[in-house]
């Protein structure tokens, strides 16, 4: 993955978050406060603006700066979580204009660790983690099995989608949805859904 691909990914995320903002907000209205779509649209619009105005020489920098922008612009729970994740991803990458799929595996894991450390959620809590973790695992296994980036990314997107859909039956134990107790079951988690969008965007921009 080079700087161009990294920025293409983030731009694709911005587009898909914009297109699906209403859907995300609807999910968040059911078990949260109805702002997840607006939050991410605001954040990734700012990320896109950042990319327009900056020339990057390092892939890691792209993610570090994007993460910082998310922290500065999103607010809520998802802002610090996604922001810290992207910052951790960026920091875990070796310096330079291109990184290998194996570098990305390590970096995505660092992102997952950041989310877990900051939010304290474990699998099954009905959060971002429930899409992010299977995506990272699928991505890592694919790369370990010799897959190229497009294939690994497609597998990660599928795993994230499965993880997001599987949140429907879960009872939330972290974040706002946990206030609803049992009533949170039966609804798909908005954060897990946006995580799926993020990995789907990677699959889309790498697809041959």
């Amino acid at each position: 993955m080079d700087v161009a691909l990294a920025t293409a990914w983030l731009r694709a995320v911005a587009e898909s978050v914009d297109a699906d903002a209403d859907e995300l907000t609807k999910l968040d209205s059911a078990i949260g406060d109805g702002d997840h779509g607006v939050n991410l649209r605001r954040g990734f619009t700012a990320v896109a603006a950042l990319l327009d105005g900056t020339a990057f020489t390092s892939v890691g920098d792209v993610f570090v700066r994007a993460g910082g922008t998310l922290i500065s612009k999103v607010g809520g729970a998802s802002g610090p979580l996604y922001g810290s994740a992207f910052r951790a991803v960026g920091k875990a990458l070796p310096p330079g204009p291109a990184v290998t799929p194996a570098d990305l595996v390590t970096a995505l894991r660092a992102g997952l660790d950041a989310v877990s450390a900051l939010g304290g959620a474990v699998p099954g809590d009905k959060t971002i983690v429930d899409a992010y973790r299977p995506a990272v695992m699928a991505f890592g296994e694919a790369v370990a099995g010799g897959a190229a980036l497009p294939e690994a990314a497609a597998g990660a997107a599928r795993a994230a989608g499965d993880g997001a859909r599987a949140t429907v039956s879960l009872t939330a134990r972290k974040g706002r949805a946990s206030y609803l107790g049992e009533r949170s079951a039966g609804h798909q988690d908005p954060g897990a859904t946006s995580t799926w969008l993020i990995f789907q965007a990677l699959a889309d921009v790498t697809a041959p």
Partner: protein
Amino acid sequence: MKKFINDPNDVVAEALAGLAAAHPELRVDHTEQYVARADAPRSGKVALVSGGGSGHEPLHGGFVGPGMLDAACPGEVFTSPVPDQILAATKAVDGGAGVVHVVKNYTGDVMNFRMAAELAADEGITVETVLVDDDVAVEDSTWTAGRRGTGATLLVEKIAGALAEEGGKLGEVAAIGREVNAASASFAYALTAVTTPAAGRPGFDLPDDEIEAGVGIHGEPGRRREKLRPAGELVRSALDAILEAKPVESGDRVIVLVNGLGGTPLIELYLVYGEVATVLAARGIEISRRLVGNYVTSLDMAGLSITVTRVTGEMVRLFDAPVRTPGLRWGA
């Protein structure tokens, strides 16, 4: 959606412009998006900074002023502020004696304030955080994000703010804030769902004879849906939950807050306060002070919350101390 707004994306900024125009005694930083006392920083005074999503007005911007907050950071509607904002406000009002962050216990607020506190520490500012989590509708367990901060926030800000105003030290101001929170319990009902400007439609559908019990202030549904009952019964159920979670004995003194969520008229809030007073009197509990009005709101949601805080004489003294803010004012 019918609201007095222009573009839904500009609501917070435009309301802040109005706040600034209406209150020359406040300084609104439109770039960093915070509201501060015009006379901040006050050298040697512990500063109080709070914040949270917009849509809870007068909380928090309306509680900035002598005797209460030094600054407030309004996020987007129902969205916690970002660390940059909080850091900017913290730096702007720090008078060298440290800063207390009053943070309502929501994942987003907690994380954003924590990040800001770390950044402030990097710049040599000592920050103490008072976490408010009074909403007993939420179980406080490892299975939840913990209890939400709701009505008690007002009392924490008032009482801790008064101590800071009269020269309390950082540790003391934070300590009394935590004591007030620990002594507070709240429970809320909603009659209607809230419509945020961004969503443009109510967050949930509620039949004409049903209410949500145990709601928070962000338009989320409550713990359970119930049939509407007479106000007296609702009050008794709420007080049962409140007094079970934070026992108050006969002979104890309390401050009571009957707080409208935005769309409920004052006539109903007073009727409900009358019911609360009756129940507490029957239990031998003395209401030392009370507030009845719209203080910690949820946009246009019809609903209300009841907060009971078991108080010490010192807390009552600090509650009575002069305060001069747009949303709460006496003695000045």
